[in-house]
């Protein structure tokens, strides 16, 4: 490599080169909007959320109860049609404390994303956020419970659960 590539090609630019118009560029602002059909499984999951329930599915062959639900088992590839009502409690599988927003700007108050393993599943869960918690007190394995939006405000969205908050375990 030393023979052939001592000076690799490429002209690096800095942001100032654009501002000072030292380089020519073309802007394009596409309008990309989508309206996705939810499909059978997620449609039912979202309807469940609207009713204040978390719904999963069970593959009886693999003996797995999973959430989010799906109409086929990706392990054995059999169709799945056993729907299971699940509790709205679980444990934190992993979490982060995020100071960056979805549009890459800095946040003063962090968001706490987490994967919540839902009780009653085979180590399955979904992404959500933790609320009413001090980040320093959270651990993998912390018990949490869903805090729901008021029933009149629920629309059939993952945000019908406002967040999960740490909760005492009640046997």
């Amino acid at each position, binding site marked *: 490599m030393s023979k052939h590539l001592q000076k690799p090609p490429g002209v690096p630019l800095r942001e100032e080169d654009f501002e000072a118009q030292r380089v020519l*560029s*073309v802007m394009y602002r596409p309008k990309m909007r989508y309206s996705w059909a939810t499909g059978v499984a997620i449609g039912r999951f979202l309807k469940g959320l609207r009713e204040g329930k978390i719904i999963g599915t069970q593959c009886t062959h693999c003996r797995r109860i999973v959430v989010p639900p799906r109409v086929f088992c990706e392990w054995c590839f059999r169709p799945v049609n056993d729907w299971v009502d699940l509790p709205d409690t679980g444990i934190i599988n992993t979490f982060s404390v995020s100071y960056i927003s979805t549009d890459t700007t800095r946040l003063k108050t962090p968001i706490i994303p987490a994967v919540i393993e839902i009780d009653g599943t085979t180590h399955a869960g979904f992404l959500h956020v933790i609320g009413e918690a001090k980040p320093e007190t959270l651990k993998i394995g912390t018990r949490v419970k869903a805090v729901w939006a008021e029933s009149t405000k629920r629309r059939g969205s993952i945000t019908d659960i406002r967040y999960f908050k740490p909760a005492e375990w009640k046997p």
Partner: protein
Amino acid sequence: MTTEPIRVEGDFPVYFRYTVGVAGEKFFREIMENGRLVASRCSSCNLNYLPPRIYCERCMSRLEEYVPVENEGTVEAFTITHQDAEGNPLQEPVGVALVRFPGAYGGLVHRTIDVLAIGDRVRAVFKDKKERTGSILDIKFFEKIS
């Protein structure tokens, strides 16, 4: 429980700033400063690329020689469009032509103010120099040479 499917709405909030590239700098600056077109030349393959590129697609040589191209060319294809990019009707239809230039390999697609036929001779009409920004729109349109 209603049976109508729930739809989920979303968007994709990105936009783009494309550099015109090394060859593009040459091409658009010639248009901006001198109101003329240039092509890049591969002497091995005897091809003058328009718009110019820094490489020959046939032999992959590096192209560093630029040659001028006349602003006048011939219509290879022509159409009149009645809809915009989103399918909405245009207030005024727009003529669009693919123009070939003598000695150049390639061509330009641009607007026309005349209704044209294949084989018509056309010339590029540029904006005044002070209004040019180094864009393909520095050419206002192609007009028929009578």
